[in-house]
């Protein structure tokens, strides 16, 4: 075994002598003799993958990733980059965290269990709901699982979940895939100047509705003003109110509990992950009465034999490894390590830092929209609402042409309509806001 190129796996530590001794103890001549694979399905090992050294692979991938264009991104729509402090990497990369697994033996994994318990507690604080699980994959799968929960607890009354017409197509697609297995229906309600149309919700809600889903902020960055009404409509119709948000927005905007939310879903990876090509951490929080219907893992408190507080995975009879086809979900491996990163980032910000970050998301969006609005040929924000991080810009010229020209100037934004762009500002791109405005001016002709 060498640290460079090797004939075998550099991560299998056996010396030739010890391999020989182990084979000898087993009474076989070579490892191949231990395999029981019939000849007609055996493979000759020639996959055609050349082994490379660590250094070669680092060079290869560094060059490959260098083929991504260097653009300053002003993009959001469900995936947001906030500055991740160095402490998050340093602590989360401690091997004791990174290279452990699900806490099947709680006595020896108290550290990670406490991390997850603290993460759950932060979500309880931010949502006002008493139960939060220790992670789902992402916002889309959280919404899908919440809809399934609603279907289980309201199965006598119907099978339809109402969602906003402005829903990321990918999120909608995930939802469709999850609810198809239980024959649930998805209906949409219209938006009114960016926010949910209460009138339209009233007209589409009915006996068959098991849940109404709303997002705050919305996909187009507006802040909802009628959440309590949506909650009330849901409850009048014996349906659940599922609210989608993110961890930063939750620290400032109306507390989900106060507007009658029954389940809170959304993205927690906005803290701790940074831009990661869509990787996420799904929030799942709910009320006590739905505790036994919650998908995923829950960490609870117990006592050990010395009567000291101890943490453990609990209420596992909901889960697939016990309940099999009657489990609340098939989820097993989750996003625990991301939850660790999110918790460290949240702790590092503290309540003041977190709320400041959220307030900046409002003021920076307003200020950038205003600067773009001053340039003739653009109107921003399109919606007469408060905004969080992002807003839509109306362009006189075709939006794709503007976006393409902005790209040539080194900026990436979303095209969301023939004459609509969407712009997202956070602490990672705010330094380039003036340059973006200058570029908007530059590309107008």
């Amino acid at each position, binding site marked *: 075994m060498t640290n460079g190129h090797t004939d075998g796996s550099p991560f299998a530590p056996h010396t030739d002598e010890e391999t020989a001794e182990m084979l000898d103890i087993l009474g076989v001549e070579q490892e191949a003799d231990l395999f029981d694979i019939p000849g007609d399905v055996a493979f000759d090992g020639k996959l055609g993958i050349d082994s490379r050294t660590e250094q070669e692979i680092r060079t290869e991938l560094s060059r490959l990733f260098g083929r991504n264009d260097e653009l300053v991104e002003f993009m959001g729509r469900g995936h947001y980059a906030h500055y991740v402090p160095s402490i998050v990497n340093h602590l989360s990369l401690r091997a004791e965290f990174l290279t452990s697994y699900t806490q099947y033996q709680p006595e020896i994994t108290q550290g990670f269990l406490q991390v997850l318990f603290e993460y759950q507690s932060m979500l309880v604080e931010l949502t006002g709901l008493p139960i939060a699980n220790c992670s789902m994959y992402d916002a889309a799968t959280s919404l899908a699982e919440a809809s399934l929960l609603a279907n289980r607890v309201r199965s006598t009354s119907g099978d339809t979940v109402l969602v906003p017409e402005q829903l990321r197509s990918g999120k909608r697609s995930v939802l469709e895939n999850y609810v198809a297995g239980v024959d649930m229906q998805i209906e949409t309600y219209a938006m009114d100047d960016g926010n949910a149309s209460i009138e339209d919700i009233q007209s589409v809600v009915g006996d068959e509705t098991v849940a109404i889903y709303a997002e705050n902020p919305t996909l187009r960055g507006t802040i909802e003003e009628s959440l309590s009404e949506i909650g009330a409509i849901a409850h009048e119709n014996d349906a659940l109110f599922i609210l989608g948000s993110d961890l930063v927005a939750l620290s400032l905007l109306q507390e989900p509990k106060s507007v009658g939310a029954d389940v809170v879903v959304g993205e927690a990876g906005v803290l701790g992950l940074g831009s990661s090509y869509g990787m996420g951490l799904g929030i799942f929080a709910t009320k006590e009465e739905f505790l036994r219907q919650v998908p995923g893992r829950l960490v609870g408190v117990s006592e050990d034999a010395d009567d000291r507080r101890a943490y453990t995975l609990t209420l596992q009879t909901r889960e697939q490894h016990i*309940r099999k086809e009657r489990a609340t979900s098939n989820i097993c491996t989750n996003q625990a390590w991301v939850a660790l990163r999110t918790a460290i980032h949240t702790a590092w910000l503290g309540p003041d830092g977190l709320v400041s970050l959220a307030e900046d998301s409002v003021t920076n969006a307003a200020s950038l929209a205003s600067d773009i609005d001053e340039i003739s040929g653009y109107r921003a924000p399109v919606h007469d609402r408060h905004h969080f991080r992002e807003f839509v810009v109306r362009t006189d010229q075709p939006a794709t042409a503007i976006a393409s020209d902005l790209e040539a100037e080194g900026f990436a934004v979303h095209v969301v309509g023939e004459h609509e762009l969407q712009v997202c500002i956070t602490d990672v791109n705010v330094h380039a806001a003036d340059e973006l405005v200058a570029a908007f001016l530059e590309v107008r002709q």
Partner: protein
Amino acid sequence: MIYEQARYTEGEDKHEPLLSEKDDTTINVGGDDSPLPDSLTRDELSLPALSEPEIARHYTRLSQMNWSIESGPYPLGSCTMKYNPKFTEDIAADPSAAIHPDRRAETAQGNLGMLYGLQEFLGTIGGMDAVTLQPPAGAAGEFTGILVAKAYHEAHGNDKSEVIIPASAHGTNFATAAMAGYEVVELPSAEDGRVDVDALEAAVSEDTAALMLTNPNTVGLFERDIVEIAEMVHDVGGLLYYDGANLNALLGRGRPGDMGFDIMHYNVHKTFATPHGGGGPGAGPVGVVEKLAPYLPSPQVEQTDNGFELFEPEQSIGKVHGFSGNWLVLIKAYAYIARLGDEGLLDASAKAVLNANYLASQIDLEVPYGPFHHEFAATAGDRDAADLAKRMLDFGVHPPTTKWPEMVPEAMLTEPTEIENQASLDDLAEAFNIAFGDSEDAIQQAPSRTTAKRIDQASAARNPRLSWHRLK
């Protein structure tokens, strides 16, 4: 080896205090300085307000009260707890790759190139014609695969309602089939521990949408009748699904695609050494044979004269993750596979199987089923497997998976993987043997050298305390 785990203790009743016990600051939100009217904000927020040194110390202490692969052997059966090579973390941290998922393909050629390369690696390793990298975990991969099967059957007018699953399969298989709307038909095992071909013959019918199989199975046995099994399922128009949890045993030596499997998922956090992260994230890419490729999730990456492009398969099932799955994990899997190459992959399966067989030969517990490959299910006999596991914790090893699969009484499902050398396997064997030979009294006192002593699971479930708010 004797193990004494770190134990920070405060007072009589707890260890390292919670963040909220170190500080709990309530601030008002909204008000005159707020950019939003009070009607749109919350009133207050209570969270710990701690300095960076305090936070660093808190999490460092917690890490010290946690077992990991780098602490010592972690032979959880079916979990494939391999060493996670450090360099893969550095590659995943490349800022050039940290881009938004909605970037136009032309401006994201680097990321698309990596995804394409990994699709190719995995397709070759599994003998599959097309691969999606979108599923964020093994169970999500199963769900994706079964949705693909369902879409295929619906497109062909096949009226199928059942998925057949061996009784010894992973719990996720059953839950997945149910989530996709199928009835589960549970297949008993034969006396030799493998699929009972006669029982399968009786179970398959025109209603069979798929058979989900792990190979080697959950006690490490290769399904020698796999070609016959595949024929039986295919004869009734069903599809054969491969659960990739045990793929480590087959690397370079057998490919599911060559055995007649139509769909498979890969657990890259198992087979391809990406970190398990305390429970995740993993990634569960899915490979399929050519006739199922049109149903894969959208988008897929292809290579054209213009570089790497995204496309939507013709009859795509849509999406199973909001974006492109667990990107950071996929990078690490690519780097690991490239590091090992053909010889390394072959050596990984060779040493994984050697280690399992050697360890089994050194323990006093009986292993009822064989010949096994990368894992074995020992039986604790008239002892309680979960109790023995608690005693093993005192000896610098993590115990195996216990009481599963149920076909082995008091099972201890053990998978040492290729990363242990003879000396650490001997340590593991010693821990097994001490626990197995210990008095019932000693077992009940265990563990004594871990941060927490034996934990009362029933109390946690009886009186759920799931946040620090419940401890105030």
